[in-house]
């Protein structure tokens, strides 16, 4: 079995195109200024459709996680792995995996500093996060 691969849709294509370039792209509302994730053509904070894409810093902190012992297809050979939610420096949160560090409760400390990196998944570059100083 292989790991699930995202299938981009028109409104998310710029996000995945950014990942292919090694950039984490977010959207920002031009009316109220708030950045948001996941990609969509309307600001969830104020309802404006006047929005733009920008390149995020890729900096984040570890907000919460589980360590999954029942692997999804394609994850069978790597042992228990963390499914994490990180808080980006710009504010929005996203789900991700944590790489470059053992996925144990001792090594995964909430609020630790993380930096985006990218993992190839078929034709897609998938954003994952590593402790600062551990980028692949």
């Amino acid at each position, binding site marked *: 079995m292989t790991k699930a691969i995202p299938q981009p849709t028109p409104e998310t294509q710029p996000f995945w195109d950014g990942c292919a370039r090694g950039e984490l792209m977010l959207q920002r509302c031009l009316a109220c200024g708030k950045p948001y994730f996941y990609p969509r053509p309307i600001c969830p904070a104020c309802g404006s459709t006047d929005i733009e894409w920008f390149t995020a810093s890729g900096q984040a902190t570890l907000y919460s996680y589980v360590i999954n012992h029942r692997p999804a297809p394609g994850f069978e050979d790597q042992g228990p792995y963390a*499914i994490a939610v990180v808080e980006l420096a710009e504010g929005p949160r996203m789900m991700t995996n944590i790489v470059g560090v053992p996925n144990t409760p001792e090594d995964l400390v909430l609020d630790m500093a993380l930096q985006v990196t990218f993992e190839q998944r078929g034709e897609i570059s998938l954003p994952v996060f590593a402790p600062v100083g551990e980028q692949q």
Partner: protein
Amino acid sequence: MSQDRGVIIAGAAETDAVGKLPNHSTLQLHIEAAVNAVADAGLAMRDIDGVATVNAPGPVQVAHALGITPRWMDGTGVGGTSFLLHVRHAAAAIRAGYATTVLITHGESGRSRVGASPFPRGGSSMPGQFEAPYGTTGPTSTFTIPVLRYMKEYGLTHEQLAYVAVAQRKWAAQNPRAMFRDLMTVEDVLASRMVAYPFHLLECCLVTDGGGALIVAAADRAADFPKPAVHVLGTGEAMETPMISQMVDFTESEAFRQAGLAAFAEAGITTADVRHLMIYDAFAHVPIYGVEALGFVAKGEAGAFIAEGNTEPGGRLPLNTNGGGLSYTHTGMYGMFAIQEGVRQVRGEASAQVPDADISVILGNGGMFATSGVLVLGRAGR
């Protein structure tokens, strides 16, 4: 609101058995539950003029199988709380005159998966693009993610989390239909297999087969039915997020809170009036979030409140008295069983009957903190 605008649950029943039912299809479970509920209300199937259930199989399939053609239908399917919303929607339909006698059914071959729909997995959906690639495997690996943040912020311990399951097992021990009835300790829970750290197997719900059904009607017909009326005093519904990663605050459920506020306001009650409580417990942390969202204790106090014995037999806030999804049964969409236990308690016919259960509150969850419904049920009308 005047008494004659009130609505009651006039009939309620589960399938003959719950648990492992490999000889029942999903549709059979709906039919058996519907037949039992109609009989409980002293009605004939032809008396039903409204039907509500979740797709699949959905209201058209269920009604057709039962040989009826209702003039009102509701296919709201927003996870395990859907049946609480069906009660709310049925109450509105009855008040509007769209239906007089609504049948709400649940049947799910959650364990044996006979005649069950496959779980949808679309790689182009938002969860398909932004969650599934990280190795999610359904509720055990997603619904559970918030709790480490809660533990850090409020000091909830692993032992307190485990005790939620211990407390509910004490109720299950009094319920002959419960799948797990042997008393257990915190040590037993913490020694069980790790499923998704910090959750052990015994902190995760069962996966079973079963069903249940309800009959909802106007309160002014209460004397027409054989069982004591269970008045629907207040209802609420709310939504938050389709993806756990987008939950606003991982230490609280805003959907639980909003649904509760609406239901308590409509019923005109406070937490002090509540004698019996059901909180959807797919995992051990959900009752903690629920007890706090409804305002029974302050934020961060529910773990200690439960560990001190307040919600177990003899405690001042009887919670999940059928044993809950953790010990009684959990077909996948557990909300129907939480309502059934609330009805039994208000009627005074529960296995682990609580004294003076004249007000019961049921909090339902759908998805991973995605949706919520709350019902306030009472022995007397407003």
